[in-house]
């Protein structure tokens, strides 16, 4: 294994409060040394490959805690291999994948298959999230202990809410005893049923049935209430509404163990994006109003929202080039997530340190995985970012198998230029 010396970059590591131009030495896949002017000649054994990173940002490998890989079952949309290729191209060294495959990841054999495939391609760390309930049907809990032993890092019925409040309570309690997080997809399906987009002026004009904000808010309120009552933690996935932000903020102030994530599309786009029936912008939860976007940004800024996750949801043209009503929901995000999030830094909403906290250190903490840090001795998972580099989103150059991105053609500034996982270069431009 090649040793690598990263020289002259600005190292930003929130886990150690580091933000300065220093060098970093990778040895045998681990972070071996970090400090000013590391001289490669002073390193005893084999001379390391030296990379001059002046003007670049060196951060702990980014973690996407909410990705949909479509293997097993929907390999025509994405495979673990293509998903990992997209991940490292987007600067992610670790991704956590949701269980809504076919079969659903509700048993050890699927969890193990995901691990096996990820190891085989060895591009990014893949952390399976297993289903809360068998078949994600919301009726019976899966075997949490066995799934955890098999390598699942969290439980979620993502794609569907756990509508049964008693089951959600049991899930939170049981997961707590195993110290493994529950990730909640908050949607009251009695309010969202039949809905195709955010309910508001745009849905009124387009004649599309709306999904009201309260479909999300009510479930966020419920989950917070259960977490409070049972004194167990809950993680809220893809926060999209101002109401959710308010509820989570108030809950945190009261000391309730709630964490939350949002996705770049919820702070980059509004429901106006749908005014030409663009099926690529059809997502669950739906793109919301400008007021909600403002609230999401405030929530990110004041720490109410802990993490930014892509909710990368690949769909092929078969699912997307159809009438809006029949189109599947979801957009890809692994390859645009970092650049869209860097806009928050450019706009002064987040500092670079806060951004890395939300895209690496916090997701690692929520998932309890030993990542998100550049501490000596930890795995050398590193992302190098060029914040000045401008590029135009072109779906045809994406590694992801699916092309469902509404950001195609957008001019963005800042991108990952080097992705190192376990001390090996997995992607560079």
């Amino acid at each position: 294994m090649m040793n690598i010396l990263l020289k002259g970059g600005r190292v930003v590591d929130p886990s150690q409060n580091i933000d300065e131009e220093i060098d970093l030495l990778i040895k045998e896949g681990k972070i071996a040394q970090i400090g000013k002017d590391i001289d490669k000649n002073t390193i005893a054994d084999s001379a390391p490959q030296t990379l001059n990173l002046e003007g670049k940002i060196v951060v702990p490998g980014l973690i996407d805690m909410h990705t949909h890989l479509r293997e097993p079952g929907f390999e025509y949309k994405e495979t673990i291999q293509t998903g990992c290729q997209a991940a490292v191209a987007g600067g992610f060294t670790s991704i956590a994948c949701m269980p809504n495959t076919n079969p659903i990841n509700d048993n050890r054999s699927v969890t193990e298959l995901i691990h096996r495939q990820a190891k085989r391609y060895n591009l990014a760390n893949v952390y399976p999230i297993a289903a809360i309930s068998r078949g994600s049907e919301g009726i019976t809990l899966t075997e949490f202990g066995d799934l955890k032993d098999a390598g699942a890092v969290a439980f979620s019925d993502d794609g569907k809410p756990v509508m049964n409040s008693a089951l959600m309570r049991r899930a939170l309690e049981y997961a707590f005893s195993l110290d493994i997080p529950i990730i909640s997809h908050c949607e009251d399906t009695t309010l969202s049923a039949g809905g195709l987009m955010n309910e508001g002026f745009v849905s009124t004009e387009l004649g599309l049935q709306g999904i009201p904000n309260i479909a999300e808010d009510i479930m966020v309120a419920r989950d917070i209430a259960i977490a409070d009552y049972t004194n167990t933690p809950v993680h809220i996935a893809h926060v999209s509404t101002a109401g959710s932000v308010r509820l989570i903020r108030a809950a945190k102030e009261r000391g309730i163990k709630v964490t939350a994530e949002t996705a770049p599309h919820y702070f980059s786009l509004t429901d106006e994006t749908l005014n030409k029936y663009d099926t690529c912008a059809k997502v669950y939860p739906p793109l919301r109003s400008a007021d909600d976007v403002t609230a999401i940004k405030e929530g990110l800024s004041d720490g109410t929202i802990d993490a930014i996750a892509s909710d990368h949801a690949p769909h092929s043209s078969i699912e997307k080039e159809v009438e809006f009503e029949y189109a599947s929901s979801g957009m890809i995000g692994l390859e645009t997530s970092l650049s869209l999030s860097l806009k928050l830094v450019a706009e002064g909403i987040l500092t670079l340190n806060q951004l890395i906290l939300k895209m690496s250190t916090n997701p690692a903490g929520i998932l309890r995985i030993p990542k998100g840090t550049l501490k000596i001795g930890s795995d050398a998972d590193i992302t190098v970012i060029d914040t000045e580099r401008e590029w135009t989103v072109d779906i045809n150059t994406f590694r992801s198998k699916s092309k469902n991105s509404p950001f195609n053609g957008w001019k963005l500034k800042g991108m990952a230029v080097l992705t190192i996982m376990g001390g090996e270069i997995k992607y560079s431009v």
Partner: protein
Amino acid sequence: MKLASKDVLGIKELSVDEINLILDTAESFIEVSTREIKKVPTLRGKTLVTLFYEPSTRTRTSFEIAAKRLSADTVSISATTSSVIKGETLIDTARNLEAMNPDIIAIRHSAAGAPHMLSKLIKQSIINAGDGAHEHPTQALLDMMTIKEKKGGIAGLKVAIIGDIAHSRVARSNIYGLTKMGADVTVAGPVTMIPRDIDKMGVTVHYRLEEAIKNADIIMMLRIQLERQGDSIFPSLREYSNYYCLNAQNIKLAKDDVLVMHPGPINRGVEIAPDIADGPYSVILEQVTNGVAVRMALLYLLAGGK
């Protein structure tokens, strides 16, 4: 003057000048329909395809008669929505249609935005003959033509649109058209039938029929979709008609020369009392007649000028 776009997807996209052009052209075609030989050679050699994913005998027939009076050929294609849940069908159909090279396609579809998708896929002119709860531009045009004919103009008139605004493409197209033409538009229905932020479309909202039709020049009643009862947007037909049926009593609140319109087909006794539907205020049959003229005008403007 010509239409700016190759398609007529909605009234939202039309300018006031374009609406006037269509209405004036339609007026000039009224005469054709009164001749003994109701045919002019204007569109000889042109082909109209009516592509209906939702049955509507009256709209389809109106398009076909319009085409035939202009000597165009018509082909009708029907598909049931149940057969297109896999949407590839619309793309496949579009590609096949394009290969057959018609001049205009009039599409009716239960999914909002389907005509917009079709218009991006193929080069032929698309006329939206009704898409989901979105728009029904030819209906709004024939309504505006009828109003103009009876009232001499549209600007300044007080128009009340009553019923299930949330699910009505007729309401949306008329709101766009009538507000553009300077009318003062009010909508009314139970709150469950009034979509969010509709006031931002430039209309006044009332929840009682009586308030909405007070001093109205035009009352436009919408068809209640009986199958929506299960969705709890209204408790029962009896309850609905008690509060929202236009009848001989409440119509007195409107102007003496009020016009009563309805896009049809009517649920007699639910949204309009029979004596009102067939009475002196009703212009429902004129609307049907004007429907042919408006569609002739659109076919002419989209295919004739070339």
